[in-house]
């Protein structure tokens, strides 16, 4: 969708495939960078004689993963599920409350301070209560993940709505548009760039929520693996879990970014 010359219709298609190739190249580049980085770490650990207790060699971490891939993959899957449920629920709730608060200032004045206060309760304290309520279920983790991810979405949705050009609203009203129509056709799309900024943040937050949630007791999940490895002083295990969490986090972020690139193709120009 890059801006093309005056006869845009004709230029558009080659520039599109060029953009695709460009993205492939940049993906390749970042892969090469990661490989180079790992190689350097490996070398440094060997050359400086760093003990595995402080930093195991990347190859050792990989080997530990390959020894029991099943356990790690299952845990990643479980944590991913909790994260995604929490993230989706948090995002929807965030946008919905943004709409409500924008539409009814009364609601905003009543509840928005509560929202902010809710975030000052340490997630650990809140998590304990949630586990009491929901038991040691997947749902409990998703709730914690939801709890720490919705507020940025609410805030940014509100920011995005507030930035809508009032003249644009006036134009829609002059066409006889009802509030719902203005919301769907103007406010929501106009706030999307802002909302996506929050969604990227919420994606990492919801992963943290899921992992912390698992610390309250469970049998699978990255949080569980992390705790077990810590108690057993299994340093390599800790590192495998860290890398696995990072992969999940990066993956989620990448998915949200890609969605943003496709959906908010016009950029935040207005």
């Amino acid at each position, binding site marked *: 969708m890059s801006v093309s010359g005056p006869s845009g219709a004709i230029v558009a298609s080659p520039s599109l495939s060029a953009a695709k190739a460009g993205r492939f190249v940049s993906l390749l580049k970042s892969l090469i960078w990661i490989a180079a980085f790992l190689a350097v770490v490996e070398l440094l650990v060997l050359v400086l004689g760093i003990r595995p207790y402080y930093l195991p060699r990347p190859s050792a971490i990989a080997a530990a993963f390959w020894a029991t891939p099943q356990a790690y993959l299952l845990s990643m899957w479980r944590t991913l599920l909790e994260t995604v449920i929490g993230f989706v629920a948090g995002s929807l709730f965030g946008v919905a409350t943004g709409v409500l608060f924008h539409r009814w200032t009364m609601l905003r004045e009543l509840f928005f301070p509560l929202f902010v206060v809710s975030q000052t309760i340490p997630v650990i304290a809140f998590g304990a209560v949630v586990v009491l309520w929901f038991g040691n279920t997947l749902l409990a983790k998703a709730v914690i993940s939801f709890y720490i991810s919705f507020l940025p979405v609410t805030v940014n949705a509100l920011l995005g709505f507030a930035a809508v050009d009032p*003249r644009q609203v006036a134009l829609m*009203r*002059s*066409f*006889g548009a009802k509030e719902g129509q203005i919301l769907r*056709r103007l406010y929501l799309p*106009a706030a999307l760039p802002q909302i996506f900024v929050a969604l990227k943040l919420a994606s990492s937050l919801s992963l943290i929520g899921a992992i912390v949630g698992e610390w309250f007791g469970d049998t699978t999940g990255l949080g569980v693996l992390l705790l077990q490895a810590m108690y057993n002083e299994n340093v390599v295990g800790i590192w495998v879990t860290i890398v696995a969490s990072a992969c999940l986090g990066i993956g989620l972020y990448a998915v949200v970014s890609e969605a943003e690139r496709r959906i908010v193709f016009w950029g935040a120009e*207005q």
Partner: protein
Amino acid sequence: MTDMSIAWSEDYACGLNPGARGLAGLLGPAKAVQITSEPAWGSSGDNPLIELRNVSKSFGPVVALDSLEATIHPGELVTVVGPSGCGKSTLFNILAGLEEPDPGNILRFRGKSSAASELLGQVSFMPQRDLLLPWRNVIDNAILALEIEGMPRTQARAEALKMLPEFGLAGFENQYPNQLSGGMRQRVALMRTFLFRRDLMLLDEPFGALDALTRTMMQRWLLDVWQKHRRTVLFITHDVDEAIFLGDRVLVMTARPGKVKLEQKIDLPRPRKADIVTSPEFITLKKTLLDAIEEESMKSFMTSGH
């Protein structure tokens, strides 16, 4: 942009009537409910479409309009000129139902006393800025009003697609606003206004952003379609030539607070040819109007430094 508009103007020159007829269909009286036996145009005896008496509007300490009086008859094309900041857009906002005038006013629409808000959805309004939605392509921006009225998208798109060539936008239906020149964006906005078929059209400097060639073409085109189906048009412009060339009447507004300073009937015969601007009658009218505008512009310059 340039080659596009030339291609379009050639198209205009040779295929004017068939093209305009397609549009003329669109300009017909919009809703069966709204038809108030549209009388022959220009006759002064018939019921006015819009009557404004003692309409004032202030924004805090700023008095934008002060007891403005105006009457618009069905089928008229009335142009409005006046110094910048004199309240022209404010007047349009009131007529579009977006702003309520200060209390004490009389606003009659089709003879019925109305609050401004009752005009929402009744008037086809083109604001000064194009206000296109950046996430909608040309076609989808053009059909915005139709969609809001509840027309299915495919039908609305098909209707808009037919109109593209007449607005010099053929082949650009899938472009997004950030890919268009200012003039093209304005034409998309104009098309959006035309597709929203209402008896009264408010055009706030619709051709202000167009280059000279496209602008004269658009003026003649507007006259052509308007002449076929007398939709009532209120047209703000900064260009006195444009005001005279298009209008049945020209309203000159005073510096802020705005009211009607001069109401000049334009008796030039229709259809008007492009060369009419050099006729002695035209020059005389222009002189009268320029004098009036100059006086007001000086005033607004002194008081507010516009």
